[in-house]
């Protein structure tokens, strides 16, 4: 109910309501973006883009389920595009001459704890599709049916991505324990 009210206030142009939504869900959204992209500047950009798109679509937006799940799905979709763009850029960069930059890396002020670092590192070993299904299942609490619908894949595909991802994580996490 509270989320519906906040969305309604946003539709009327309330900056406070938008700020409230952001404060309420920013941690979940940034954790998901970090786990999917393993890069804090990209995670920030994705959450930024998700909120811009959310506002742009406010006029026709109708909240029918959980706002958190909706925003997390948006983050997953946006992160997928970012991932594709990154892959494209890295192919181009591989074929180009190496560039030595004197500029400092931009400073980002997201601070995350050790657990998120571990999560992000473990997820980096999986394919993007596997990460997506695992995170949406665990973090957003989405069923495989819902995940399949939102990603435009079959339920069996969603389940197999999850299963292969978990198998891979078992090896990674066991290796970490042995170390």
């Amino acid at each position, binding site marked *: 109910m509270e989320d519906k009210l906040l969305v309604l206030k946003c539709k009327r*142009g309330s900056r406070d309501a938008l700020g409230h939504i952001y404060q309420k869900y920013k941690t979940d959204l940034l954790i998901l973006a970090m786990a999917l992209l393993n890069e804090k500047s990209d995670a920030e950009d994705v959450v930024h883009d998700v*909120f811009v798109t959310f506002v742009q679509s*406010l006029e026709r937006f109708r909240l029918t389920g959980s706002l958190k799940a909706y925003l997390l799905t948006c983050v997953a979709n946006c992160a997928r595009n970012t991932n594709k763009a990154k892959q494209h850029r890295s192919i181009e960069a591989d074929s180009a001459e190496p560039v030595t930059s004197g500029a400092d890396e931009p400073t980002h002020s*997201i601070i995350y704890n050790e657990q998120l670092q571990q*999560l992000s590192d473990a997820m980096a070993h999986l394919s993007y599709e596997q990460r997506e299904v695992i995170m949406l299942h665990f973090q957003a609490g989405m069923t495989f049916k819902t995940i399949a619908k939102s990603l435009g894949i079959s339920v069996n595909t969603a389940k197999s991505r999850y299963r292969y991802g978990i198998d891979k*994580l078992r090896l990674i996490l066991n290796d970490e324990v042995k170390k």
Partner: protein
Amino acid sequence: MKPADKIKDLINKSDVRTTSETDKRILGGALEHLDKLKQKKSAADQPNIWRTIMKTGITKLAAAVAIAIIVFGGITFWPHSGPENGKWWLGPPAVWGQEIMAELDAIKAVAYREQLVHVLSDGSERTSRIWYIIFESSNTHRRDVYDKDILIETQWYVPDGDGMLQHSVRFDLKSYFTHSGEGSFGNYEPIERMRFLSGFWMKQISCWERRLLKTVIV
């Protein structure tokens, strides 16, 4: 621990902190778009109100007339046009509405009374129980709210930095509150509000092709 449980555990224990600068950077773009949306919406509000009112059942049966008595400098303003008997409101609204708006261009402060009288198709009247006396200048706005003859509330805005603060005293509830942001007066500048009201009612009456059943001065 199973890998699935381990991942769940890591997710539950994961945490991200952001500084206010990061928040501004992430949310800034969305807030800009929200402001644009708000501007667009308020620009489109006038025809929307009009359409909403015309769609309601009561407007099909009744004419609603709001008469504002405008007083400034101790002189009551009446439009000059209208029938000889002085009932200017029975004259063409396009004329007296324009006169009111032209006067509004020249003034800096107004005080007026706002009350709604619905005249139903059977000739019966419904005078609103709640009415207002409004005092407006370029940077202040005060509204006294009456319930019949009893003053129940005084609301006023005062400038506060770049924005406005709204204060309200409810005499009937013995309460007082103050807050920043939008209040019940809406987003209009004081003079703009008067201009809007005059234009709005003029348009409304014109659109009824002067099928005005009765007019009541309040």
